[in-house]
């Protein structure tokens, strides 16, 4: 065999790899028209959060297409410049590229709390608004808050208090014994802290908490263990693929202890399949809510992408719409005007019954969330129809602050 053969084989492999990688690079290469308004989209589209990120990218694309079809904003076309932020280090590079080279007017996206923190630092340095559409960590809204960082995604506290408020009403917490399973990284630790605090404050008992490494493929050992502990409830603080895997294996053992948890991502639940789901959960947004704007958005998304929007798609779609509405209302694209408008309490249609607005002192979008219950299989219309929406939290007459961290709980001090 000659060296040419060897090199030939390698070249062929490299060509294949290049061909496979190409579609991801394309959006960034598209050149802008001169007077268009550029929005930077940055989110993980590969790696363990890639499934959610891809949904976000699709939704942001749809929002921009619809805006352009309606004539753009201020008579100018909108252009989405999209980048894949695989990990925090890449996120920093891509954020810098979007800010310095593409001259975007704001950044939208992210799922990972670690990457979001890195991007937020870059955006703050460049004095550019960053709309976080998928990172839940309380710390981002707390000690790491800054004037240019806005949160469309709910915080861990919001997720916890949504399900917790409902459980408290149903008297499920007081005296009940809870077993926790928690993802062993920043997000999980943060979530365990706020969820166990809420339970303890309301008379619940934390029976045990097991920290689980991410990407665990086998949960049988944990399930056998919790079976012997006989808790009243199992509380899941896992995310992404780990959530899917646990749900499937928990169903495998058919244990009687009801499931609930500190976060629910529709995409992980879809991947598990309805027959493997059980329990009562919370949702930031679900395509089955009875709201006609939500239904219309779901139909448009479904027509384009052959699957309904999940909570992540909702976040990026609403994120782009909030940015565009702000530009339209202020008639300006500079950061100072945008920030000022948002802090002054501008209200936004969120594809939910109540309009939302940003809390001025920590920039969290105040909004409704939902308690959802896994649907009876017989009544499910298709493979995405997995939940019954029980109720919106806070209720129609309650203050948005019910599920928010109080100023005492949140150390955010903006300068």
């Amino acid at each position, binding site marked *: 065999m000659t060296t040419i053969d060897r090199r030939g*084989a390698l070249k062929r492999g490299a060509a294949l790899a290049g061909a496979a990688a190409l579609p991801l690079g394309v959006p960034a290469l598209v050149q802008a028209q001169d007077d268009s308004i550029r929005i930077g989209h940055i989110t993980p589209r590969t790696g363990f959060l890639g499934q959610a990120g*891809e949904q976000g990218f699709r939704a942001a694309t749809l929002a921009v297409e619809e805006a352009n079809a309606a004539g753009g904003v201020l008579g100018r076309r909108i252009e989405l410049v999209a980048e894949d932020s695989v990990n925090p280090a890449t996120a920093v590079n891509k954020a810098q590229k979007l800010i310095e080279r593409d001259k975007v007017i704001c950044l939208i996206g992210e799922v990972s709390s670690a990457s979001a923190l890195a991007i937020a630092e870059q955006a703050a340095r460049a004095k550019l608004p960053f709309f976080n559409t998928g990172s839940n960590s309380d710390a981002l809204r707390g000690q790491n808050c800054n004037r240019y960082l806005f949160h469309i995604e709910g915080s861990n506290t919001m997720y916890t208090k949504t399900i917790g408020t409902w459980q408290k009403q149903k008297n499920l917490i007081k005296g009940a014994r809870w077993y926790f399973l928690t993802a062993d990284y920043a997000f999980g630790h943060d979530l365990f802290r706020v969820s166990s605090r809420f339970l303890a404050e309301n008379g619940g008992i934390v029976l045990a908490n097991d920290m689980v490494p991410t990407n665990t493929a086998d949960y049988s050992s944990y399930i056998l263990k919790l079976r012997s502990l006989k808790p009243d409830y199992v509380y899941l603080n896992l995310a992404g693929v780990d959530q899917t895997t646990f749900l499937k294996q928990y169903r495998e053992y058919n244990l009687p202890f009801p499931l609930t948890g500190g976060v629910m991502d529709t995409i992980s639940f879809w991947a598990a399949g309805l027959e493997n789901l059980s329990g009562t959960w919370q949702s930031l947004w679900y395509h089955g809510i009875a709201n006609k704007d939500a239904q219309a958005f779901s139909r448009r998304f479904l027509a384009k992408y052959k699957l309904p929007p999940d909570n992540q798609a909702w976040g990026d779609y609403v994120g782009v719409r909030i940015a565009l509405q702000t530009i339209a209302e202020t008639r300006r694209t500079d950061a100072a005007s945008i920030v000022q408008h948002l802090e002054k309490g501008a209200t936004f249609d969120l594809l939910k019954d109540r309009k939302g607005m940003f809390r001025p002192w920590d920039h969290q979008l105040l909004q409704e969330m939902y308690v959802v219950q896994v649907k009876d299989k017989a009544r499910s219309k298709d493979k995405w129809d997995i939940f019954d929406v029980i109720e919106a939290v806070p209720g129609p007459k309650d203050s948005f602050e019910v599920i928010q961290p109080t100023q005492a709980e949140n150390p955010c001090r903006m300068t």
Partner: protein
Amino acid sequence: MTSCPSPLLLQLFYDPSLLALLLEQIVNGLLVGSFYIVLSLGLSLIFSLGGVVNLSHGAFYAIGAYLAYEAEKRVGFFGAMVISPVLVALIGIVIERLFLKRLYGKDPALGLLFTFGLALVAEQSLRMIWGTTGLPFSIPDALRGQWIVGDFIYSYYRLTILGVSVLAVLGCWLLLNRTPFGLVVRAGVRDPEMVRALGISLNPALAAIFALGVGLAGLAGVMSAPLAGVQPAMGSEILTAAFVVVVIGGLGSFWGVVLAGLLVGVVRGITVFGCPPGAEASMYLLMVLVLLFRPRGLLGERFEKFE
């Protein structure tokens, strides 16, 4: 809040009834271990004979799961369990004949680079064909349910995995030790030059072993699909575990892989009992300990070509 050492472990010292729970974990570890064996056996075979460090082993595992997803819709789960590994093996033969055969006996880095690239291409292809989102795949109705013996609980599905794994391991052993083909393979593992000198071509054996190896990975993919989900990154996530098992068992050793797979499963179960955050780290710690005292792995033999 730290959960290591776990309260259960401390309780064990004054409450012997917990020993039953520990025993349950150990037995469960053996079940989990049987899955690791099927996953890693092919990797070990391919390395032993062809000298190729197959970094695309995880990709074949993922392809097995995806093909099973398609096959299950048409022929049911049990049909998928047969068809999918066979298809994966056929893909393996094509890749071996087109590319990999050019790399045998060359600098091992070439095989490494090729299979690494292959894994990236495969993962991206899965994304392009089936989408980035995970696909639902459930335990077939016939295998749902649990077998409860006293305090112990076993799912029928995992017992089925155990059965299939035992069959797969026995089948491979018989193939390698009781057939003329196996004789050529074993001779090729020890001394390929001598086999060639005797006028026996190793090429068919190399292709067959690669196909068998990746077919086993495909089988592991099918078995894990109902438990761990079907998603594009599943292959790269499992690859490291497969390597750890092979290294602990010892390169080139059939029973080494079997022993190491069971050990990894049991050690992991015990760690979940005693120190949950260390669950994933436990297999690496085991590897470090084994390598410190037996650098060739538990049952690794001294072969001239590996020195």
